């Protein structure tokens, strides 16, 4: 059987989800944001939730998420996505409401909004892309930047006296009574992509079931900010990010 024979709709096993439209994404080659957008598109399509979903985009590299996923979107001020999501979900309780946020957005400028939305147990899902750096503004230090990690504002590596400690905000959020599902995943291998998809799906289901706030952190790469190739970024992430941000469920009730 030739390749051309195999390429036939009857044999299709994997394709771009239709919720993810044809607009080329602006992300750097190899960026984790793309994988997670694709998963969100797949999940919303499979759940049949396109009509019911309102996404809240952040300020960060994902600011244009609304251009790629064909659902209704609001684009929040930097860090305020959980506040928008709170209002949207309370005013439209039967909708699926999720935020999509980077580490600067969620764990620096928006820490208060994140913690309080989680503490109120807002019935929203929070997708948290932790790439340990400010991607959009050109690779500055984030609250999640690792010890010794170089960034444009920690050019000689992050140090505790100057910058304090990397913030494991997900661990903190798991302590709050308002959260029902807190998990940390990645998206660098087939297995991890599959697991992250399951996690996001569960978070979305929780939002609809009114169980409280779900947080799916995805330990991610920012190869531009890290100044590594996409493949080397994955290796670096496994060796350096995973020890600081271990994968797995932190809470599931």
């Amino acid at each position, binding site marked *: 059987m030739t390749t051309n024979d195999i390429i036939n709709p009857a044999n299709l096993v994997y394709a771009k989800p239709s919720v993810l439209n044809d607009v080329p994404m602006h992300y750097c080659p190899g960026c984790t944001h793309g994988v997670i957008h694709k998963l969100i598109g797949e999940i919303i399509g499979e759940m049949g939730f396109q*009509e019911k979903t309102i996404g809240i985009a952040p300020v960060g590299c994902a600011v244009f998420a609304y251009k790629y996923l064909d659902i209704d979107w*609001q*684009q929040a*001020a930097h860090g*305020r996505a959980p506040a928008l999501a709170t*209002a*949207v979900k*309370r*005013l439209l309780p039967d909708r699926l409401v999720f935020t999509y946020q980077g580490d600067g957005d969620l764990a620096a400028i928006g820490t208060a909004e994140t913690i309080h939305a989680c503490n109120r147990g807002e019935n929203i899902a929070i997708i948290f892309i932790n790439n340990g750096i400010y991607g959009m503004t050109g690779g500055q230090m984030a609250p999640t930047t690792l010890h010794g990690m170089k960034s444009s504002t920690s050019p000689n590596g992050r140090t505790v006296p100057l910058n304090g400690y990397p913030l494991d905000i997900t661990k903190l959020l798991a302590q709050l009574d308002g959260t029902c599902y807190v998990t940390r995943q990645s998206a660098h291998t087939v297995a991890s992509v599959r697991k992250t998809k399951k996690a996001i799906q569960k978070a979305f289901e929780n939002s609809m079931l009114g169980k409280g706030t779900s947080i799916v952190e995805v330990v991610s790469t920012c190869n531009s900010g890290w100044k590594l190739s996409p493949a080397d970024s994955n290796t670096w992430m496994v060796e350096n990010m995973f020890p600081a941000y271990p994968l797995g469920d932190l809470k599931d009730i």
Partner: protein
Amino acid sequence: MNNKKKDTEEVRLMKGNEAIAHAAIRCGCDGYFGYPITPQSEIMETLMELEPWNTTGMVVLQAESETASINMVYGGAGCGKKSMTSSSSPGVSLMQEGISYLAGAELPAVIVNVMRGGPGLGTIQPSQADYFQTVKGGGHGDYKMITLAPASVQEMADHTVMAFDLAFKYLTPVMILADGVIGQMMEKVVLPPFQPRLTEEEIKIKCPWATLGKPANRKPNYIYSLQLEAEEMEDLNLRLQSRYRTIEKNEVLFEEFDCEDAEYLIVAFGTSARVCQKAVEMARAQGIKAGLLRPITLFPFPTEQISHYANQTKGMLTVEMSAGQMVEDVRLAVNGRVPVEFYGRMGGIVPSPDDVFEALKKLIVK
């Protein structure tokens, strides 16, 4: 509450802050998000007491900060829902980024500022020193906010209803700029009749841009204010500016006392205007032909009307509870034709009618 009166007007005695809460529920407000600060906390307290979620379905939420409140308002407004917040000066300072986003995303919202004295933490006493912040754009970028300046408890109620109407008519944030006196004082007020909240079907028609979830037969709706292309950003600005010109043409509101034959005109808004009305009466009793023009909208400003009086009067006096902010707009309207003097008190002090009358007499001597 007497159920029979549900859809009718109702006469009550209450504080200005309470009137806002009652009027919000009655005009079909969908969501209130706020953070406590004196002298306006009664707005949220009244709402929590009234529990409108059990009657009209209105959402009321105490947020973690004014930053969160204004962004919750943004979220609600993006869904085409009548959304509002209230605060006092320091809190409104914290909201400025969010207000600019509301303007940039062309969203309808109502913000109440029951002003107190500043700068800094300032005082809990009344003030009008946030005029510049409100009408000159406290946040970033070229935007304007329709600004209503109530001078009575009745207007606190009326302006709440009007603010939502204007916000949805022009897709812009609208500010109710009150001060601690009007927020705290009790007066008789006719509360507006009950209006049901809009259904989702009604919102879809009235606000086709609202993010309610994308049905198969329409494109996704996005609420955003980011334009990376300079030309597109300028297009948005041009659209906003032309809307502001329309607002200036159609929505100017003011009230006049004894202006027809006035030789001396006092211009004052809110609490100051109440004081000035007394001063005008004192002047008239002594044979001085004084009048009062009270701007009700601060943006759009009654420039034309003030300009008109510049041709008939010998001088004007602007009275504010600030170091003199609106006076600049009065001077722009007058454009040097007659002297425009200023009298004001700061730090939470309300001028007395005697003080104003003295200031007026000084203008006459000049």
